[in-house]
């Protein structure tokens, strides 16, 4: 049994597709395609399909992926791409389909490109000045207070022509139980400087494994 990873972009309108809806869309397209994907056994067989570190609603990504399995060792994966792409919602572009090189449980961190409005420059400076930046994180076990500085001691703002700025951050992001930090928490901490979350764009650009290499 081969694990096949489908890597795709989730941009523009597609940023507003929830994980649940995305799963439904992929299930339907895969089922209808007739591709030799593995179905779980049992009373009510369904396609094995697993999304890696799905994004929050409203965020964009050029490095999303999901996994299916196949018993067909010689599957023509380029043909898969041609079979699936036409049915995808606008904004979902399949980048690559190939045998999974690394396990999704190896994902440790994600890189995000944040585009901030003009007030963002000041917010970044304020962040860098503060000894600690406490944010509240909702978890399954309740609320937890975190210091963002533990992960991001300093931010680098890259001014943009239009007045805003761009900030690139790397945050913990694990597929399973491990640590996870949503970049929206960082944006929320900018509120006192007049940066509203909806004025910012969040684009996930890369995923990394524990040894610091890029997850593909």
């Amino acid at each position, binding site marked *: 049994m081969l694990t096949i990873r489908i890597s795709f972009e989730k941009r523009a309108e597609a940023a*507003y597709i929830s994980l649940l809806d995305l799963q439904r869309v992929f299930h339907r*397209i895969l089922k209808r395609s007739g591709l030799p994907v593995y179905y779980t056994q049992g009373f009510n067989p369904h396609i094995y399909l697993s999304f890696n570190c799905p994004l929050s609603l409203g965020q964009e990504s050029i490095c999303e992926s999901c996994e299916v399995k196949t018993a067909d060792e010689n599957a023509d994966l380029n043909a898969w791409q041609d079979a699936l792409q036409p049915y995808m919602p606008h904004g979902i572009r399949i980048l690559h389909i190939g045998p999974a090189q690394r396990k999704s449980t190896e994902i440790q961190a994600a890189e995000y490109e944040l585009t901030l409005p003009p007030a963002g420059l000041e917010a970044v400076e304020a962040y860098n000045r503060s000894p600690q930046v406490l944010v509240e994180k909702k978890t399954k076990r309740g609320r937890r207070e975190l210091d963002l500085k533990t992960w991001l001691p300093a931010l680098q703002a890259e001014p943009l022509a239009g007045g805003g700025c761009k900030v690139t951050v790397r945050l913990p992001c694990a597929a399973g139980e491990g640590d996870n930090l949503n970049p929206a928490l960082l944006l929320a901490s900018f509120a006192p400087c007049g940066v509203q979350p909806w004025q910012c764009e969040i684009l996930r650009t890369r995923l990394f494994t524990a040894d610091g290499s890029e997850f593909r």
Partner: protein
Amino acid sequence: MPTIQELRQALFSVQKPGRYTGGEPGSVLKDKTKVDLRVAFCFPDTYEIGMSFLGEKILYELLNRHENWWCERAFMPWVDMKEQMETLGIPLYCLESKDPLREFDIVGFSLEYELCYTNVLAMLQLSGIPLRAADRDERWPLVIAGGPCVCNGEPMADFFDVMQLGEGEQMLQDICACVEQGKKAGWNRERQLLELAKIPGVYVPAFYDVTYGEDGRIRAVAPNRPGVPARVTKAIVRDMDSFPPPENFVVPIVGTVQDRASVEVLRGCVRGCRFCQAGQIYRPFRERSPELISGCARTLCANTGYDELSLMSLSTSDHSRLEEILDRLNAWAEADHVSLSLPSLRVDNFSQSLVEKTSRVRKSGLTFAAEAGTQRLRDVINKNVTWEQIERGCRIAFSEGYTSVKLYFMMGLPTETMEDIKGIADTAQQVVDLFYTIPERPKGKGVQVTCSVACFVPKPWTPFQFCAQDTRETLREKQKYLLSCVHSRKIKVNYHDSATSVLEGIFAKGDRRLGAVIEQAFRQGSFFDTWEEFFDYDRWLAAFKACGVDPDFYNYRAIDLDETAPWDHMDVGVGRAFLVREYQKALRAQTTPPCNRQCSGCGANKLLGGPCFAYDQDQL
């Protein structure tokens, strides 16, 4: 045009933002600088409900086939989004281009049920378009309506420039062509409407004057412009094969009520149930050929990627070549990974082979429309179903592994007595008892019979249009009595509060004087009236009072057999004489055979220009 970036603030704080972004596979994008005509197709309810209607999909494809026209979609935003749009000053926009409705040439609404009327006003207001036709000149979009409610669109007459009576396939394309012509020629609104009124099925409410007698009843309705027809005749597709069903759908990403491929196999209904408006206004019965159905369905599934196909119509099992359709579909469906479903199976011809041909469909539950609890009342309403047929249908279903049955009934039917109400409970009990007599029944499982009881609402163009609606008090008593007749835990009774049915009854048979009431209620905060959490009956009562309109006049009053009804300047095919005849037969509990067995001379065949059926051939 708000871009996705500008919309972000609104989308940030609403539930299911995917409803407001468009981008679904199958949605049509064009270059607006290269099109001559832009149509906003609006559904006055949520995205999830609107995207489930087939009519919109049919017309969306037909209009967009014209390279120089662009048809887009808009829906009623849910409460949270409506509030965001109002606060942020985002006008209602179409999902494809995100352009506001007021930039379109035509803004069309699909009126599928009466309780969506306030949503129409809400959508116009969100667009910044004046609500009343009288306040709009050629600088505003032409606001039009279509859908079954137009068979009596009078309550909404003030708000629409044009209403389309009947089937839109040809009519809407003619309207678009005429508007394109008028736009290029620079016609003013009056001239445009006069030209539009020449198109078969087009009704321009402002071109008719209604006069009333002292008792409030209508004295006459007459055209007030030369050349405008005294009666508007319904537009109809004579040959269903001349308009192939859609070969592509916009495939919603956010889950909707109906999320599957569907193909309309026939239009109209042969049955003539006396309570059913659809069964009358879509007459005559017309079928599509199995070849066309199967071919288009296959293309549709290939284009959309849907893995489920349903055969749509008022009564799919009445298709004279249903088995052939199923054979053709089954020839490719499995290889294409598509499963079939038949949503409107009927008890009386629910056969073993039909069950087998659709056996790949989930065995979740079966629904049977019995409509009334006793044979006498079923004869009154001409629901020609007997207990023997229900029994046979259930027997097959139980043997095939089904364990739950849903029975549909109505309450408040003409001539109904408490005996008939008890009959509902008795019928359900008989089905429960039947289950345990069947040796092949699914073992280890109990049976569940659900009675879904709707409140009957008399509708125009039916033999019961003359009847008064049951009052809420009477209906409540009947509901209470029904519950007291149920003695098994295996029987579940569902019914709805009757307040919404009251309003439905008023609008259904209403006239133009209700326009003021609808506007008043809307201005006082009414919208989403189909949603229980927003429906406020008292606010409606206050609106009637404020406008000096007596609601009871419309739904609690019987209409005289020779009285001019508000919808009599429409002609949907069936004639008044036929409706009167049927009404009188109903009072005598006499049934009328279905059209494919014997013509009852309703008059609808004139729309085809000949008889509806070739009776010498064996149609059954």
